[in-house]
């Protein structure tokens, strides 16, 4: 069996606006490996959520997938019909969003959410059997089965997020996409939720793509990390290598601007400027106007994204010197 579950190749996502196309995701390639927790980080507007949606082909007009390939478990999703995609979504690929309250139906009991999900995808399952499955599932997630008869507003924030996960896992999910799943949670609840994610990964053989702006959360749970900037992939690598030895200057800056409660004294790095306007991205490397190590070539040409150390890839001219000299 291939150890890559989902493979994104040269993906372009564009949004049409009256000022022209916004390149929300540009030329992104990324492999999600079986059984891993991959942390996808970046600041707002970097395209990380768009990438998460594109993986499920959930980009709606005025957006569109303008190019690239999406391979899930050996299947070319770009050739799938809408009907086939509907079966994949919520079936083999599940998704959890930031705010559970807006994702749950306020006038539906928790149990109805679950049985509806199961029976939509598996119409042959009886209502009774679906309820039994729902009960078993929520208990695994630490919710007492009596709570299934509650409405979403009767649950706490942490419990709602568990319900969201149970919805994602109700079918035979292989890949779970979690988009800022802990952002609306308090730290203690967040920490418990992260523990739960790790347990679920082991118990259900899950692969998890965790989209977040919270670097601490990625350090806590991820096996590998992917850093996006201005619609492009800046760096990908195993979490220990990237945190210990970031290659891209943006990653370096991002990591050292995160407050760390554990270090005795260290000043926060203050990154100059702000992320670029994607309607008119800078020429060359999109990070060059803010980059402390920018060279003349950076403003002119895009660096190639490639492996620069064992298991660590980046798009930066600092590591592309060979090509520069070869002209």
């Amino acid at each position, binding site marked *: 069996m291939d150890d890559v579950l989902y493979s994104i190749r040269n993906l372009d996502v564009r949004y049409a606006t009256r000022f022209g196309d916004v390149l929300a995701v540009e030329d992104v390639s990324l492999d999600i490996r079986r059984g891993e927790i991959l942390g996808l980080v970046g600041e707002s507007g970097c395209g990380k959520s768009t990438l998460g949606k594109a993986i499920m082909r959930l980009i709606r007009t005025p957006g569109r997938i303008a190019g690239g390939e999406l391979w899930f478990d050996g299947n070319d999703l770009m050739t799938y019909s809408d009907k086939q995609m509907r079966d994949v979504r919520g079936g083999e690929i599940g998704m959890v969003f930031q705010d559970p309250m807006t994702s749950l139906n306020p006038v539906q009991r928790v149990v109805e959410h679950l049985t509806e999900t199961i029976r939509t995808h598996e119409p042959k399952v009886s209502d009774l059997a679906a309820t039994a499955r729902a009960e078993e599932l929520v208990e695994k997630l630490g919710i007492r089965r009596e709570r299934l008869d509650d409405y979403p507003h009767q649950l706490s924030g942490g419990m709602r997020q568990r319900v969201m996960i149970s919805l994602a896992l109700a079918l035979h999910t292989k890949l779970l996409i979690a988009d800022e799943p802990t952002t609306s949670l308090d730290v*203690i609840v967040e920490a418990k939720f992260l523990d739960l994610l790790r347990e679920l990964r082991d118990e259900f053989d899950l692969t998890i793509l965790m989209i977040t702006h919270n670097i601490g959360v990625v*350090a806590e749970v991820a096996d590998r990390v992917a850093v996006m900037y201005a619609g492009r992939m800046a760096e990908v690598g195993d979490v220990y290598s990237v945190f210990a030895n970031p290659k891209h200057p943006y990653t370096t800056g991002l990591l050292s601007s995160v407050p*760390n*409660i554990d270090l005795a004294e260290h000043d926060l*790095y203050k*990154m100059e400027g702000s992320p670029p306007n994607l309607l008119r991205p800078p020429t060359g490397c999109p990070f060059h106007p803010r980059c402390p190590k920018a060279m003349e070539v950076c403003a002119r040409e895009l660096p190639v994204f490639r492996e620069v150390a064992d298991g660590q890839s980046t798009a930066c001219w600092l590591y592309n010197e060979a090509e520069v000299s070869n002209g």
Partner: protein
Amino acid sequence: MAENLVEVVGVTKWFPVAQGFIDGITGAPKQYVRAVDGVTFEIRKGEVFGLAGESGSGKSTVGRLVLRLHDVTDGKVVFDGVDLGSLSNEEMRRMRHRMQVVFQDPLASLNPRMTVGETIEHPARIHMPDLSDEERHARVLQMLEQVGMTPAEFFYGKYPHQISGGQRQRVVFARGMITAPDLIVADEPIAMADVSVRALLLDLMMQLKAEFDLTYLFITHDLATAKYVCDRIAIMYLGKIVEIGPLDVVFSDARHPYTRALLDAVPVPDPKHRRTAPLPAGEIPNPINPPPGCNFHPRCPIAQAGICDGIDPVLLPVDGNTEHLVSCHLRTGEYQDLDPMR
């Protein structure tokens, strides 16, 4: 001149819960959300005082009570020697230029139809009627430069939607600064900003503090950020302060089990430091019917039956250090011998 800019003494704020029609005519007892339940602390001149806790802990309500944006249910707030509760509305209005507030979401705090310049000028029109138009305009430009928005003339005519999120928060700070306040209540001022922008905003806050002799009440849920700015910190749980002290003492030697849990739960941006400490059970309880005795006892790993669930703990000095106070029966006071971790 008092050493304390703000003294919060036994402050309580209960919000009535909306009752249904039937409850009203059957005379069911009125219920209250005990948002703030007997809080005492002081903010010293020139310090950054942190107030931290989870959502629902009452930290933002305390901030509003300090500004008298809410009236207290009980207790008093003394600002520079004056009991704010004793002031008439007109007197309070004249006091307001000395205290300003910065909220989390700058877009919600700014009027979309006012330019940056008009926004910053507005408080000066109200609170500084003696200034001439030219003087006021010059002051606005000076404030813009002060918060790093240069060239000031360029930003003067911009509307909030034309500038970045970080710049918007700078405008909110400039608007707060123009009346030369003594106190700024900053309620999650950087929570909306991107990581790379946060450090710059914190830097700006500290710069303004140094230049204008400011005092801050810094309200946050993020202990990691608090570490970089606060001199002293109070940890709130369910409307009460459970621990208070100098920041480095509280962070290195937290005594309250809740403070400990909160500190342990903060994700550390270093994969080599994965958390191992167990987390407290359950979630923050309903503030309408808080648990009896110590609020935290149902979740507390060291709670002792008969004490923690019956007797209200009070803030007491830790090992005789009057700067570091903890509200826990097992960590201060007469029941310390019962602490299972001792």
